[in-house]
């Protein structure tokens, strides 16, 4: 498992608006990469191009290439549904399915893709919830609604749901921004645990978080409102936070702007 991601010449549009321009970067397998930058710089947009979620919005389109183990996600004949089975995603706000129990939420991806075997489903629920550090808290109430959990538990439920389909890559779009510090810590511990099996890309506004969880960091920024966002610097996290090459990176991480 786990997969190398190579992004080359990636430009993403919302209708006529160019949101992010000419991004080139390579993400190593089984690593945690953080995307940081001010609001509107296109880091979430780039993240969403990695599992073809960008184009879900009306008028949104992508130019350039995203290679997943050498295969172009935007090549002819590629089915976005199959892409998303390999590249899971966790969103900013926890979004468990409100009509489903905890159990059903975890296996939603499997069940909606036609897996019926009860023993396999049971096994995968336990595995995924343990993987998401949630099993001990919910094992006695698997049939209760997923929406009844606390915010942090819901987010870990969403992570369990994402890893239950056994993706190669896990994308996280500001997964802790709606959570309190304790729940954030739980998610960060979880990321440490998941890094051995998945390629993880995380978008965050929290620079301490980026420095805590990631090995490599990409800094995105934009000149002024209305301009497309660009990749400013991409390097190891220690390099970015201790000795950045670019003036703008240094200004951002030292809190002088953004």
């Amino acid at each position, binding site marked *: 498992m786990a997969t190398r991601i190579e992004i080359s010449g990636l430009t993403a549009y919302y209708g006529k608006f160019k949101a992010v321009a000419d991004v080139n970067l390579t993400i190593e397998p089984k690593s945690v990469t953080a995307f940081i930058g001010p609001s509107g710089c296109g880091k979430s947009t780039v993240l969403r191009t990695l599992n073809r979620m960008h184009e879900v919005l009306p008028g949104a389109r992508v130019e350039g290439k995203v290679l997943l183990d050498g295969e172009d996600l935007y090549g002819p004949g590629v089915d976005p549904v199959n892409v*998303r089975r390999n590249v899971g995603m966790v969103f900013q706000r926890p979004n468990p399915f409100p009509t489903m129990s905890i159990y059903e939420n975890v296996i939603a991806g499997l069940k909606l893709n036609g897996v019926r075997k009860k023993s396999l489903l049971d096994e995968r629920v336990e595995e995924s919830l343990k993987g998401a550090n949630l099993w001990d808290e919910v094992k006695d109430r698997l049939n209760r609604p997923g929406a009844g959990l606390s915010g942090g538990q819901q987010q870990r439920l*969403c992570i369990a749901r994402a890893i239950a389909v056994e993706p190669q890559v896990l994308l996280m779009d500001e997964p802790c921004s709606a959570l309190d510090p304790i729940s954030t810590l739980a998610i960060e511990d979880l990321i440490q645990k998941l890094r051995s099996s998945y390629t993880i890309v995380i978008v965050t506004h929290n620079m301490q978080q980026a420095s805590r969880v990631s090995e490599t960091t990409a800094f995105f920024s934009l000149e002024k409102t209305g301009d497309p966002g660009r990749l400013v610097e991409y390097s190891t996290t220690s390099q970015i936070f201790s000795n950045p090459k670019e003036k703008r990176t240094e200004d951002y991480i030292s809190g002088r702007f953004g």
Partner: protein
Amino acid sequence: MTATTMPAAPAGHQSLNLRGQTLRTPVLGAIAVGAVALTALLYLVTSIHSRIQFVLIVLLLFSIGQTVASVLVEGARRARDRLVTTLVYGSFLLALIPLVAVLVAVIERGAKRLDMDFLTHSMRGIGARDAGGGIYHAIIGTLEQVGLASLMAVPFGLLVAVYLVEYGTGRISRVISFFVDVLTGLPSIIAGLFVLGFWILALGQPFTGFAGSLALTILMVPVVVRSAEEMLKLVPDELREASYALGVARWRTILKIVVPTALPGIVTGVMLAVARVAGETAPLLLTVFGDNSINMNPFDGEQSALPLYIYSQAGQPQQVAIDRAWAAALTLIIIIMLLNLIARFVASRAKVK
């Protein structure tokens, strides 16, 4: 010693006046009694008789008295608050009056004829002055016609709503939306006339229960589309995205995530549509024709229906016929209420607890 004491309040300091003055309950009671007394006096000296107007005048006098007293004691802001509160509660009570009045009237007059005999017999062979007879044939007709109409209108309306919310962009969906709006305001007799002119006269089909359900379908579809559309729009996009991100195809996402999330609201909308068409008389008048005998087959021969039955019985001069009409009206209300309860029960079972 002097260091620990608080500095004294500066001279001329005014209290914060956090409490304010409040109208006491006895004062409000006195105003209410005064309003009633004044209205009663008004009724004695003038020639007004209406009981509804009595309530209205009392309400009006009470809110005037209350507002004046409140302005004097509590100030303008509290007075406005009291006035609007009274208006809101008053409007609620006024809206309740016709509802309760209708229910009471129907139960009062319908209950005396409503028994098993009435529910299990048709009007076959009952003469104009005979006291017997029943509504079995009309219940069968209504259930079959409304059932068939629902079978056609609900899936069709749901599909249209799904198209409008999930797929429709641009011109086609705007055109469809516009025509759905136009159809929502369609007078029900036009739907009956259309089926009469097109299905029965032009295509040469006989008067049947099915012809009636076609007319009811025309009336049901726009209601189902509108309500289902509103409910589907309320489903947050985050749930759709969560499903897409799990590698679930779009149609499955709609079927397994979007529609179930909106289901309780959709059921309510469908029930409103069913309740609306179950009481329709005009379109059935022109399509099912009405018949005094039991006809179980909606595809062959004339049928009756409860609204049609009420219409024809209520139009007759004999008291026995008018009693039958009231009892049939009560039955219709009970049937719709039962359907509503069943639908709500089914929808609540679909939820996780």
